[in-house]
């Protein structure tokens, strides 16, 4: 495939119906909780009502006495001696000596019905010794804060910091002090973002069985079943090879379904219950209390700018808590926050801090939205102060292909300039604004991850193709992979099936995360298809009795590569496939690698909004997403990623947050109070797909899934400033906060 030959594409870039659409509009698609097995038991989990407490005693006598209760497990049922992240995972899935957050699992039960399991869970009596707790990141690293786990800090942490600081980082280049000295305007501000939840509508669910032979099987809604296998095995102290994990359809993940929660509990319960399958389906409250929230952040940013808009130096110091375990994405936040700017002098400092909250999980561009809120807010403020156009300032300082990123490596092909030019050309920038209305703009960035990838494809006897991938389809990746394979083979889109297969069917695949499914599985699928094409050419060559190299593949058929190769009519894929049993047997292709050539994606958003000055309520009037997709394989699903990311970012900016009471208990544990945007909160979300092809992918794909959540946070804060003149530095900008700021003006 010629890298610049996209104009000849027949299928890539079209918008066919997704292959799994029919099952998903008829209710037939099977998600995590839809799967059942004969003889199945139901599991329920007992969770700590305390933010921080020593577990003195667990008495399950009353639960075990109930007719129909088949197994009760506590941490005593798990192996000891785990270390590092394996220990973290085990500790998070089942508390040991201490409950570390409200909602932390302390015991689990399996019984013959869901209601019985819930009743039994209520009868398990846990005696706690409540300990002092800490929730806020700044409070958690302040002198005197309760120590969540002594000795958790790694070697990066300098002497003298609070034991809750478990990771420290510092990196940069140039001389920031000299850079600030060159500036006409130097500003420094502190920003805060609150923790949010991924908010997938499908609660976590799995069915597991594990016999006395120690072999287990699981059906689970997940972004990555090899991760589930590896992590569950580690927690249970067995080899990953002893588990077979099959992914169901997945009802949203956004990063939150790349790790384990109740999965090892269901395996342990099944084993204890004599191998009967055990199903665990979380309630929404369990999802909010005990699964994947994001980190919260406290961030200092300092920037120097000349009066014509050149950034001379930049410094960021971010403090993030990611719950009671190491892993807040402070590194990612720092890498991304200045990524859009060409900087000679830049310095980053980061602290990863423990607090009494659930272990944070990935959420769409983890860390990047937090950092963008801080940096893009400050750049906007400085542009206004200097009377400069915020888009022009981004263009002036913006990175282009070959520039060294703020965090170190050189950028390959990137499309920030093209994105900014597309913003300038968009009519929304000319739309008139009324009283109390404002317009905000911001840029966002996310990488494109490669990851271990294994794909197989097989040619059917009728000349169709079946592709086996290991990356669950969350948002239409079956369609985009089928398009790329069909394009490569030169056959109709409908003739390609894409199946997400279980852990026994392929080599290891990383999850659908890091904006990688269409990039990595897509690239591997094309490579696998090329292998099958090579074999089909070989079969034709054998029949024609010419050299393999003298055959080329054009429009779904083998043909002699030129006039000297011989004179034979093209041999179609259907013809080759129809007789493959006689010409050497099945034809298939396989590819496995950690694909190189990832293509990072920049985006820019423009939001128009109105503030009710009497109540502080914000209404989004218009919204524009412009982002570089490299090449949109199925543009509808690229637009969908842009729109979905924007909606989540709008929620984070305005109303979503984890609210804790004074005892450290999560107050908003249902969707009534964890306020994700509803349909009537949003306008249509306009999209512009910029296409600066990624040369590292056969069709030019960049990962597009994550960047879109990043710009809304600062864009909305900037628009609010434009509308009513107040600079909001603490998310979410909910009505009480904004009204208080308006009254303080």
């Amino acid at each position, binding site marked *: 495939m010629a890298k610049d030959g996209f104009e000849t594409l027949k299928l890539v870039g079209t918008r066919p119906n997704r292959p799994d659409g029919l099952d998903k509009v008829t209710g037939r698609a099977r998600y995590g909780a839809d799967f059942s097995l004969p003889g199945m038991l139901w599991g329920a989990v007992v969770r700590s009502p305390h933010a921080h407490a020593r577990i003195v005693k667990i008495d399950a006598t009353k639960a075990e006495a109930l007719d129909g209760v088949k197994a009760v497990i506590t941490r005593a049922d798990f192996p000891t001696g785990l270390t590092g992240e394996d220990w973290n995972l085990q500790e998070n899935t089942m508390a040991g000596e201490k409950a570390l957050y409200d909602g932390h699992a302390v015991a689990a039960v399996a019984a013959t019905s869901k209601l019985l399991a*819930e009743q039994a869970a*209520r009868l398990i009596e846990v005696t706690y010794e409540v300990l002092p707790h800490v929730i806020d990141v700044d409070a958690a690293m302040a002198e005197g804060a309760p120590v969540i786990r002594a000795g958790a800090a790694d070697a990066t942490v300098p002497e003298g910091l609070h034991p809750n600081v478990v990771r420290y980082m510092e990196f940069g280049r140039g001389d920031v002090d000299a850079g600030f000295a060159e500036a006409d305007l130097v500003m420094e501000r502190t920003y805060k973002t609150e923790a949010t939840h991924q908010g997938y509508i499908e609660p976590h669910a799995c069915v597991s069985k594990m016999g006395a032979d120690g072999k287990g099987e699981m059906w689970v809604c997940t972004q990555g079943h090899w991760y589930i296998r590896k992590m569950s095995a580690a927690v249970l102290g067995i080899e990953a090879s002893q588990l077979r994990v099959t992914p169901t359809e997945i009802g949203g993940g956004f990063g939150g379904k790349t790790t384990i929660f109740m999965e090892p509990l269901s395996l342990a319960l099944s084993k204890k219950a004599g191998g009967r399958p055990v199903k665990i389906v979380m*309630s929404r*409250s369990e999802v909010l209390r005990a699964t994947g929230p994001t980190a919260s952040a406290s961030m200092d940013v300092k920037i120097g700018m000349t009066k014509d808009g050149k950034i001379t130096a930049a410094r960021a110091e971010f403090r993030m808590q990611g719950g009671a375990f190491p892993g807040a994405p402070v590194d990612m936040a720092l890498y991304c926050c200045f990524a859009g700017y060409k900087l000679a002098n830049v310095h980053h400092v980061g602290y990863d801090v423990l607090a009494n909250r659930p272990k944070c999980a990935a959420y769409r561009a983890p860390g990047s939205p937090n950092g963008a809120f801080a940096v893009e807010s400050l750049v906007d403020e400085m542009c206004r102060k200097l009377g400069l156009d915020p888009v022009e300032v981004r263009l002036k300082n913006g990175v282009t292909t070959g520039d060294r990123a703020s965090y170190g490596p050189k950028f390959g092909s990137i499309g920030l300039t093209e994105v900014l030019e597309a913003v300038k050309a968009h009519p929304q920038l000319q739309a008139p604004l009324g009283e109390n209305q404002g317009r905000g703009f911001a840029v966002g960035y996310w990488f494109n991850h490669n990851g271990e990838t294994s794909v197989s494809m097989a040619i059917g006897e009728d000349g169709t193709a079946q592709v086996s991938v290991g990356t669950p389809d969350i948002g239409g990746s079956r369609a985009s992979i089928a398009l790329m394979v069909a394009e490569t083979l030169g056959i109709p889109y409908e003739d390609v099936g894409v199946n997400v297969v279980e852990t026994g069917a392929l080599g290891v695949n990383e999850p659908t995360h890091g904006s990688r499914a269409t990039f990595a599985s897509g690239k591997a699928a094309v490579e696998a298809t090329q292998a099958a094409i090579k074999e089909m050419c070989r079969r034709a060559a054998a029949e024609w009795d010419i050299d393999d190299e003298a055959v080329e593949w054009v429009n779904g058929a083998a043909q002699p590569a030129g006039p000297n190769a011989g004179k034979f009519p093209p041999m179609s894929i259907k013809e080759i496939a129809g007789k493959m049993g006689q010409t050497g047997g099945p034809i298939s292709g396989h590819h496995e690698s950690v694909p190189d050539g990832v293509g990072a994606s920049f985006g820019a958003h423009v939001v128009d909004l109105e503030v009710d000055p*009497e*109540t*502080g*309520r914000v209404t989004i009037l218009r919204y524009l997403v412009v982002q570089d997709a490299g090449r949109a394989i199925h543009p509808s699903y690229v637009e969908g990623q842009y729109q979905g990311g924007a909606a989540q970012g709008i929620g984070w900016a*305005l*109303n979503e947050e984890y*609210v804790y009471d004074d005892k450290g208990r999560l*107050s*908003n544990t*249902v*969707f*009534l*109070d964890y*306020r994700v*945007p*509803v349909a*009537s*909160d949003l306008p249509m979300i306009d999209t512009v797909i910029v296409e600066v092809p990624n040369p590292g992918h056969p069709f030019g794909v960049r990962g597009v899934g994550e960047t879109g959540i990043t710009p809304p946070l600062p864009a909305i804060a900037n628009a609010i400033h434009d509308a009513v003149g107040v600079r909001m530095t603490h998310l979410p900008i*909910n*009505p*009480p906060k904004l*009204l*208080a700021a308006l*009254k303080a003006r």
Partner: protein
Amino acid sequence: MRYHSPTDFASASALAAGASGVTRFLSGGTDVLVQMRAGMVLPDDLIDLKKIPGVSDITQTAGGGWRIGVAVPGIVLGAHEGLKADWPGVVEGMNLVGSTQVQGRATLTGNLCNGSPAADSVPGLVAAGAVVEITGPTGVRTVAVEAIPAGPGKTTLAKGELISAIVLPARGDNAGDAYLRFIPRTEMDIAVVGCAVSLRLSGDTITEARVALGAVAPTVLLVSAAADAIIGTTLDDAALDALAAAASAAANPITDKRGTKEFRVEIAGVLAKRAAKIAFARAKGETA
């Protein structure tokens, strides 16, 4: 849990009076089922009222008012042209409860008996001067709606007592009502503050008014000082400011996950002004 579906209120009352454990009445179920799901309330006896004849009816009373059955869901209330013409504020309060789906089940009586200070339908009923008929072990009594809530999750109903109907008075001429709530989203939130205003005009002058506030105290408040601030006025700017000041002064809220105390106090005044303007326009026969 035992599930009962009696066919008259006396039997329902007797069941509740004779029960020894946790008892709940079920009409729409949009609160009871949520509490059961969360394990907050695990009833021993659940008494479904929907098999009682008449509970799904809206009928006009002899005096020109309206009698609303305990199982009339929001969607039916919202589709009743006569009721909407008389008491648009009551109907719009009920129709703000939950989603389209929740409107298919949720009832005025349930919203009242759930005892939430933030119940969207209650300020409208209080401003309207609605009363409830209560069936109990000793017979039937009638009390004002504002006498039912006793604090978050609590009512003044005694053991064995249940509401058997809500009765709205006749609307009369030159009158209008309105309900507004503040929520951070456009839908699906519990009111951070709610305010209902009902008033009557003589010409352009307000002759009667009732103002009720929700979510700013342990129970819905009937604020006579706020009503006094606009009675005798033409709802000019001075009257509106006085109304807002009285509403804010009456508010005695807490800070919680849904809003701060300061915010609620401020918004009580803002909503009172806005609701009063709508009620005024309705009383004048203008569409608002």
